[in-house]
Every structure is written in C-alpha cells, then in structure tokens.
C-alpha cells in the first residue's frame, strides 16, 4: 500500500512535469523598457502574446534604459536571448555587420509587412534585407509655452525669419527663445538635424550622416550659419543641464520653445502644464523650396543570431507587427504605431504628430545618432555642443569631424 502510494506520487509528479518538457517553448526577451510607460506596454504585449500562444512562455529580462545600450554587446555574444530591443537605421548596422542580428526578411515577406510597415521599411533595411520589426515611433518638433507667447504678444512662426524676429522679442522680455539641456549631448543633435533638413533637405542630410559628404563642405557651413543666428537666443549654460531641467525652464516660463521629441510631453504635463498652454508646432521652414522632412526615431525588436528559439521568436515579431497589437501598445506608450492600418490615440500631441509625419513629403529621418555611425555620432554631437558654446571655433570643429568621417570610411 505504502509502495503503491509512492508509485502514485511518482506518477503524479511525472504527469505534471512531462507536459512541461513537451511544451518547453520559451522565449527569452531582453528589453530596455525600464521606464513606467514602456514597461507597462511590454507587460501588456507579452500577456496578450501568451494568451494567443498558450504553449509559449516569454521570459523577460528588463535592463536599465541607458545601461542596456552597452549591455547589449555583451549579451549578444555571450548569452543571446531570443528577442532584443534596439533602434532602426545606422544604429543597428554594427550588429548587422557583425552577424549578430538575424535576417527576418521572411517575416516581412509572409506577413505583408513591406506594405503595412512601409514608412519604416527603409530604416529597417540593410543590404536589401530586413533585420527586425519596428513597433513605435514618435515625432520631434517644437514644444512651446503658449502663456509666454501671449505674454510677449507674438504668434508662433512657421518660417525662419519670423521665428528669429520672435526670438528677439523674447530676448527683449528677458526670456530664452529656445532652451535645451545638452549635458547628455543628444538633445542638440535634434536641433542640428532640423537645421540640416530645413537648409539642405532630406536627401542631402542622409548623405551627410551616411558619411558621403565632407564636413568641410560649403553646404555644411550654410547649416551652421543658420544655426549661428539662433545661438544668441538659446539658453546659456545648456551644457550643464539635463534635458529634464530644460523642461522646467519651459514650465516656469523662463523659456518659450524647446526642440524635443514627443516623450517630453509627459514631463511637461507632470510639471503642471496642460493642453491649454503646452503647444506643439513643426520646426519652421528655412528654405521654402525644400520639401518638408521630419524626424521620427523608430524603436525596434530584433532576433539575435544566437537565439535558441528563432521559430517562436519569428511568431512574436509577426504578432508585434499586427495593426491591432501596435494600436494597443502605442496607446500605452503614448507614441505612434508604425503599421499603417493601426489607429492613433486621441491625444492632441499624437494627433498632431501623426498629421505632421504623414504629410512629410521630404522624408523621415531617424535621428543623428541613429542615422550616423556610432563613432561619427559621438564626435559630431560633441562638435555641435562646442559650436553652440564657441561658434568662432567652427572651422576647427568641422576639420575634426571631417577627420573622423575619413577614418570611419576606411
């Protein structure tokens, strides 16, 4: 009796463990979704995926958003997950070149993603193949304090001359026309990108960031000449502060405009602004003959080459690309879905961004540090910061950037 009891117990144990072995379909997902909104969005996404594919379990490793950028190089080579977050454009090029990302062109082909994800297709394509699936992007532009505009008595400008004229009025009133925080460098790359896109256009800008145009070119100098006009109206000490500190300059009415991405809306609203006094406008036109291009960085999910379960990972990518999934996810993220059949949340800034991007005839740039090579990005953004503080050193800065470009091209 005792023996048979034990036997039963053993059988019961085996019965419970055996299916677990049979359905050992596990996906390991390394993600940088450490901020509250992305974290919630990914938790929801994974719960939905597991509900749809009950025999697959997804194991998530959440990394700190900044730390992830360096950690990814270690885990891709040492202990590759099945799925990993990253960014589109040139930012994924080192991993593609080193054969660390899997070619997922078949997922694109089978699910018709070339049509539904068309707007981001070029940013996901290297050597004619697709290397991941984009799930969200967000617009850049100018966020401004309507109360400050009303106080000084000016209207938002859509062209460069009027914008600079407004800036003079803000300056006379003791208000910084444009604020930014360049301690982490990247916020000013947004300003450079818009200067470049508006002065010389999308195609030229992409050639420049791809390293096909010398930085000592006269057209580059034209970009900086326009930028120099803005410098007297830009917050001093921007090099000492983070982008969040510059948000409070706008909230407190010490500054009028902020060239930023849509993720800044949350801190603006947290700081006490409302939809009543937080405005959004596109970056003003500098050269009217150039079709308007915009900046919209895309976030992506990839399958590392060392993935242990690539088949299910591809199922996950196909799921992530679906219009209903992207709609739901981006509502939580507060960003724009890539899939053309998805719908956008009714948030006014998202609606504005959607209109802005869907009418950008010039093209959509990723962002300086995603369009340019990593090496060029770092040296470039440092150069922009030095230019903003010491515009008289421009020639030396451009020579330095050119040296970096030539070395990177080798």
């Amino acid at each position, binding site marked *: 009796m005792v023996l048979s009891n034990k036997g039963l117990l053993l059988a019961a144990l085996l019965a419970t463990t055996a299916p677990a072995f049979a359905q050992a379909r596990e996906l390991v997902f390394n993600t940088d979704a450490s901020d509250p909104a992305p974290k919630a969005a990914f938790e929801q996404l994974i719960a939905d995926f597991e509900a749809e594919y009950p025999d697959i379990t997804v194991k998530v490793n959440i990394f700190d958003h900044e730390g992830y950028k360096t950690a990814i190089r270690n885990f891709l080579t040492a202990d590759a997950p099945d799925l990993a977050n990253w960014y589109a454009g040139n930012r994924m090029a080192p991993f593609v070149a080193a054969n660390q990302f899997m070619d997922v062109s078949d997922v694109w082909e089978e699910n018709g993603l070339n049509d539904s994800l068309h707007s981001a297709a070029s940013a996901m394509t290297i050597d004619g193949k697709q290397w991941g699936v984009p799930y969200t992007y967000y617009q850049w532009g100018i966020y401004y304090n309507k109360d400050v505009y009303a106080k000084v008595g000016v209207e938002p400008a859509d062209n460069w001359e009027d914008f600079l004229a407004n800036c003079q009025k803000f300056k006379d009133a003791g208000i910084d026309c444009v604020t930014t925080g360049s301690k982490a460098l990247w916020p000013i790359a947004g300003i450079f990108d818009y200067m470049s896109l508006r002065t010389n256009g999308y195609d030229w800008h992409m050639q420049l960031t791809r390293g096909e145009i010398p930085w000592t070119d006269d057209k580059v100098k034209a970009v900086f000449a326009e930028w120099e006009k803005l410098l007297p109206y830009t917050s001093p000490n921007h*090099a000492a502060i983070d982008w969040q500190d510059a948000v409070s300059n706008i909230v407190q009415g010490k500054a009028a405009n902020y060239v930023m991405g849509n993720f800044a809306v949350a801190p603006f609203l947290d700081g006490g602004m409302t939809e009543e006094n937080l405005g959004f406008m596109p970056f003003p036109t500098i050269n009217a003959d150039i079709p308007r291009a915009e900046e919209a960085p895309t976030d992506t999910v990839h399958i590392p080459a060392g993935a242990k379960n690539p088949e299910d990972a591809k199922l996950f990518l196909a799921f992530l690309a679906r219009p209903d999934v992207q709609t739901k996810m981006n509502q939580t993220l507060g960003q724009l879905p890539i899939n053309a059949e998805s719908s956008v949340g009714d948030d006014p800034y998202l609606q504005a961004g959607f209109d802005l991007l869907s009418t950008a005839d010039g093209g959509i740039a990723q962002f300086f540090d995603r369009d340019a090579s990593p090496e060029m990005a770092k040296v470039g953004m440092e150069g922009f910061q030095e230019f903003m503080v010491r515009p008289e050193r421009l020639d030396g800065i451009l020579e330095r950037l050119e040296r970096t470009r030539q070395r990177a091209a080798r």
Partner: protein
Amino acid sequence: MTALPDIHPPKARPRRRRSSLTPWLFLAPGLLMFAVYVLIPIFQSVWVSFHDWDGLGPMKWIGLANYSELWWDDAFYTSLKNNVLWLALYLLAVPLGLLIAVFLNQTVKGIRIYKSLFFFPFVISQVVVGLIFSWFYAPGFGLFYVLIEWLSGTGVAILADERYVTYGIIAAGLWPQIAYCMILYLTGLNAVAPDQIEAARLDGAKGWRMLWHVVLPQLRPATFIAVVVTVIGALRSFDLVSIMTSGGPFGSSRVLSYYMYEQALSEYGYRMGYGAAIAVVLFAIMMIFITGFIWKMWRDERGL
C-alpha cells in the same frame, strides 16, 4: 606550538624542500588570481591595442596605427593635460589632510564627533559626492552659483565652462581625499613619541619648527601611504568625471581613463583597439609612479 615537543624530527633535506615549496603553495591562489585578473589582461590589452576591433566582429591587425592616431588626437591631449592637472592638484589633499589632522589632534570634549564629521566625506560613495557637487555648482539654484552671482553679478556654471570644469571636479574629488589623508595622519600622530616632543619642547622648539623637524619625520610612513594613495587616486579618477559631466562640455573634462571607457565601452564606443591603446598609455604613466614606489619600499625593507 614551539613549546610542544617535536616527536618526529624530520631530516634536514626534505624539510628544506618542503619549506621552499610551502610558501609557493600558499601563494598559489593569490598568484593565480593576480595572473588571471591583472597580469594576463595587461598583455591582452597591449595585444588588442594593435588591432582594429569593434568588440563583435573579427580583429584586424593594424600595427601601430592606433598609437599614431593618438599622436594626432586633440581629445587625447586634453585628457592627458587634465590627468596632469588632477595629479598636481589632487596632491594638495596631503598637506591639507595633515593640517586638519594636526588641528584635530587635541583632547577637547567631543573631539571624536568632530573627527568623524571630518571623516564623513570619505565614507560616502564617490557617486554621491559627485551628485552633491553637481547640485552645488548647478546653474540657477546651486549654492556656489548663487554665491558667485551674489558676489559678482553674473553666475558661472562651473560644469558648463571648459575653463573651470576640471578644477570644479578636482575640488569635488579633494573633499573625500582630504578626509582620507587626515585619517592616515591622525593614526600617524598617535604613534608620535611623546618623549621626543617633550625633549624638543625643552630645547625651545615651537610651532612650525616643531612640526617640520620633530613631528613630520616621524610621520614619514603616513606621508608615504598618503602620497601613494593620492597619486593612484588621481590617475584613476573616473567616477566623478562620469557622474558630474560625462567628460563634457565637449570633452574638455575628460581624463585618460574616461576617454578609454568612452572609446571602448560606452554607448557610442565600438573601438576596442583605440581604447586599449589609451589604456596602455595610462598604464605606462602609472608604471612610472608604481616603479618609484616599489623601489622606495624595497630600499626601506633592506634598511637603506
């Protein structure tokens, strides 16, 4: 142990062999760790510095190209200059630590509290020190900024100005380092022979002369350790630079260790070879000091 009778006196020869083997056996774990984590990586770094390598793909031999690029690299010279500044100014921690130690070396009620308050900055993490000083310098609300604004009319954002930024960071670094030197000297002062002080006092030595001729010579071991620790601390200054400025504005507060990290390991760093070349240069500079220190210790051991 020596009191116990030796029942089996071993023969002379095996004992000598064993006694020559035993120290090595005891050293083996330490030597192994030292080799795996220090010696071998040094040679690996030198090896990597001759290559072009992004840390992912294959390594490409490029000979001395990384070093010749360093030779023409402005950012490298900025870092080198900052390292020299660090070295020179960081050593101020030694005399300042001595000053505070002498000041605190008295028997007043509650002196232990004052001592621990002065020691406090060394106890808190460098990261916290960096954050405190960043806020101290912060434009707009920082105490230092407001003070300068009040005195001169215009505030100076120390960490955004390439002229002052390195000094600002060194000042933050000095704060805990002075405390460290102070504690070294305080323990040293405990060991100063009171009879010599007494004798010097009878001979009429006071103040400076007493300090210079009687007390300081007895503090030589403490001074040696303080200098060694400070020099090495200055050369590996990394955490404060990283926390306070990330090397900015536009790279003007970088030091060699931070530049190495940026090139090899940071967000945009995909140049292991170049980073390794910087590490080798930093290692060479450190070797100058380390050799000096070891040479001095070796001389002292031999009683020269």
